């Protein structure tokens, strides 16, 4: 597979930027929940990055630089108006959890007892339903495994903000997952 283009700039760019395609693709996928859109986003990002290659300061965090380009593309094309999420019934989750918790001997079983055997698509859908700011940090932390510092650099906000968005994002997520579990009949309706 001949990947590398004929000139030095192309080769250099491919060498430096391509290793991060994985992370960018997965981020795009989780944000759009759609492989075609993720594809487009990645292509768009890499083309822009190549065009602005001389603006990238060699030696600085290239992953963050690429990520910011992608984030801007995402915002320009896909961002819907951020609205406050619907009010969620956290007590419902808590009550159910409390009722099954003592029965589960192994904490690892709790996952399945609580949410049942959710499909990958259910979880993807739940993540995709989060407001953008929360979704971004949940993806970067829980799916991509980035550190708080890396996330803070990508998103360009203080670490405290990363933490609070994670907390709120996961909180929203728990009730979304509960909803899916109920829809699948894993959890009693009441």
């Amino acid at each position, binding site marked *: *597979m001949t*990947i*590398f*283009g*004929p*000139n030095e*700039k*192309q080769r250099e*760019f*491919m060498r430096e930027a*391509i290793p991060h*395609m*994985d992370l960018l*693709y*997965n981020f795009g*996928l*989780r944000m759009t929940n759609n*492989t075609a859109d993720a*594809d487009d986003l*990645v*292509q768009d990002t*890499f*083309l*822009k990055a*190549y*065009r*602005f290659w001389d603006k990238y300061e060699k030696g600085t965090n290239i992953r963050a630089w690429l990520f910011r380009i992608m984030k801007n593309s995402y915002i320009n094309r896909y961002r819907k108006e951020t609205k406050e999420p619907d009010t969620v019934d956290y007590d419902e*989750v*808590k009550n159910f*959890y*409390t009722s099954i*918790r003592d029965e589960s001997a192994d*904490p690892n079983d*709790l*996952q399945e007892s*609580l*949410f049942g055997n*959710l*499909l*990958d698509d*259910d*979880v*993807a859908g739940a*993540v995709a339903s989060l407001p953008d700011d929360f979704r971004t940090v*949940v993806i970067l*932390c*829980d*799916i*991509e495994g980035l550190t*708080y510092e890396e996330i803070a650099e990508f998103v360009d906000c203080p670490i405290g903000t990363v*933490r*609070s968005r*994670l*907390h709120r994002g*996961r*909180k929203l*997520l*728990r009730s979304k*997952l509960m909803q899916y579990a109920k829809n699948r009949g894993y959890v009693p309706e009441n």
Partner: protein
Amino acid sequence: MDCKEFQEKVSAAVDRYLRNEEMDAFTEHGSRCPECQYEYEIESVTKAVVRSKAKLLPVPSGLLERIAEQINDEQNSGFAAMQTWLLAFLQRPFVKPAIVLSFASAVVVVFLTTGQPPVNPAADFATDDVIQQSLTNYRAVMNGDIKPQLVSGRSENLKSFFSGKTDFPVLLPTMKSCSLVGGVLNDHSGAALAHVLYTHNSNLIYVYQACWQTVIKGERLKLQQQAKDELQRTGWFAESRPDGQTIVLWTKGTTLCAAVAHMSKKDLIACLTEGEDSEYRGW
């Protein structure tokens, strides 16, 4: 540790960022406070579910090649741009009525008969002079040697096309009785250039755009001192050429524009000054 502190640290605890002593205090509070302990446990479970069900997927095959190809095309934009342009030109229904424009049909005919790769505006010319580049490009456009990279009469499409690619705002002024035809992007010695084409009645107006600062500096792009002075003084500089063409330069913010057309100075300036300016900012 109290509940407030505990709550603030829940995520950090779930992600294993708390140091030993902090974690001890955290666990200790949790053992005394079921509400707080619940928050910690449920968040751990939520994270675990996401981790187990939303795995990292491999990049689809073909994506890398497509990107490599795209970058290659970008690098060799001349020939590839021509092919893409022609395809786009033939496929877009709203462009077909534009075939009545002498410019467009001349271009199609030239392509079909000569099959020559297009000349990139300004790129091949030894001259750094902005006026010379503009005049040469105008002639090349009239001959059909230069084709727009994007053919569109809609300014939104051109805005997207130019977005983020230049270090100056690309202007798409709405000019009196003029229609947008399309645009070209390239560079001269690394200085970004934007070219916009309009028609006015049966005339073609070619507008060359560059970064005014770059021209003032005079390294990659040059302009005669007299023109620079007048631009800085009045914002305009116009010249009638012996072959019936007029060139009008003007600056707006950091953008320098040069319009060339086979029109009288009076008519061209009238076109340029009447009608609203539509400005689009780059990156």
